């Protein structure tokens, strides 16, 4: 009986212990993009050391982005962050375009051609504004500007393009600054 009781205790203990939640692992810190800005890569035949030059305003902007300070982002970044405000803005823009369209259509001083042109301009402006706001008109991918980088470096010419600043864990970066260029093997 005693042996049975002992066996039960051992079993229950192992069951209870097995039911314990795993000790919490520190969350895996992924790279986070904090800022999109511009970068120029240039060569200097007189320099003895590679240099990373950051303008004061860029440093301020980066610092603000790291601190998560609101309102310090780029102009486009400061627009339409809030869903509520975006909805209200969209409704107002819809009303503006609708009323403008009605007024244009009812206007007697306009000819048919002017009406068509006016309508086309309105549509173009609307699409343009919507595209700017949603950043849908990003144009070609960022790598497009960097496609001639090797050739430009060989010729000593500067190359200018966009860059995303990412903060990565030390384990991933080896505790140094890394510049990753979007270039494909040719």
């Amino acid at each position, binding site marked *: 009986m005693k042996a049975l009781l002992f066996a039960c205790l051992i079993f229950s203990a192992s069951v209870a212990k097995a039911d314990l939640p795993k000790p919490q692992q520190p969350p895996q810190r992924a790279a986070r993009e904090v800022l999109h800005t511009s970068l120029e890569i240039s060569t200097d035949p007189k320099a003895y050391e590679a240099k990373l030059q950051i303008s004061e305003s860029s440093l301020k902007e980066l610092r603000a982005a790291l601190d998560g300070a609101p309102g310090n982002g780029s102009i486009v970044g400061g627009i*339409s962050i809030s869903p509520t405000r*975006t909805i*209200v803005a969209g409704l107002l823009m819809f009303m503006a375009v609708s009323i403008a369209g009605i*007024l244009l259509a009812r206007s007697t001083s306009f000819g048919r051609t002017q009406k068509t042109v006016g309508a086309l301009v309105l549509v173009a402006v609307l699409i343009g504004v919507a595209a700017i706001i949603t950043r849908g008109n990003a144009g070609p991918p960022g790598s497009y500007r960097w496609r001639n980088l090797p050739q430009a470096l060989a010729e000593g010419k500067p190359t200018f393009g966009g860059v995303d600043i990412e903060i990565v864990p030390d384990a991933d970066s080896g505790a140094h600054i890394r510049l990753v260029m979007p270039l494909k093997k040719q």
Partner: protein
Amino acid sequence: MSAVTVSQAADYAEKNPDFIPCYPQRAFFSVGVVSILAAAAFASWLPLQVSIVTLFLFAGPHNWFELRYFLMRLPVRFGRSRNFFVTAFAGLALLTVAYVSLPFVYNARLWSDDGWSTIIAGWNTALLFWLGLLVWLRSKQKRKANWTWTIPAGLVLASLNWLGPDFFSLALVYIHPLIALWFLDRHLRRMRPEWLRTYRRCLCLLPLVLAVMIWQLSQTTALPDSNGLFWRITQHSGAEVLPQVSSHLLVSVHLFLEILHYAVWIVALPLIGGVIKTVPIARHPRGFPRLVAGLLIAALAGVVVLWFGFSMNYSTTRDVYFTVAIAHVLAEAPFLLRML
């Protein structure tokens, strides 16, 4: 001055006994150009220092001259314009009270950043709605004018305001000084029509000067904002909203426009407005001379108090002034509409 213009001026002087003989247009043009260039040079050279001195000297007096000008343009009886003026004064009072209460609302810290932006967007929308209402009421009095396009234009502005309330508010800061130039244009059209073309030629210089300022100052280093006053000045010009733009450029451009604004209200309009020597609502038999005199004396006392405040605590007085001064910004709208 050509012979035709001289004869026109002579006719005008004959019909208007109060007419003060005008200076030659060439002198007017020269003064205008020199004033614009000097304002741009000072604003670009020492923006912070000149901003402090300019505000101290001219902020209060320009408000006094504005009040005097608005009283001059106020009819003795509103008549058909009753609805227009009631809407104007009611909106002016409500919007001013709402604006003055905003700092208290902000300090209550009941709002997230997003909520605060929504409050600002709401005030801006109320302002646009009020302006739209005034335009509609004014357009009813002008049968020939077709101002219906202002409805979609106002809605587009309201929409843009909701996308970026801070940018919209900053745009108001920069647009407000330019309204004085519009007032001067309308006033010249009535009082000195022969000067209008010269004045508009002077105005053509404005975008050129602004372009040169932007070209010269866009690469300058940011202004020091280490102390509270300098920080306030750079923030007022939009240094926080536009961090990519040099604060030197922002402060200089804003100061340049402000100097022109003060020059118009304190120098140009009183000189040209000399035709009307007294305020009609005070001079008229059914007018209110005591009320007008009381208002002007109270405003004069306000100017003295403002100078005293600037001398004691410049930063705080500056904050209070720019909060309360929204009333004069708003008041310009109905009086400008009456002149269109």
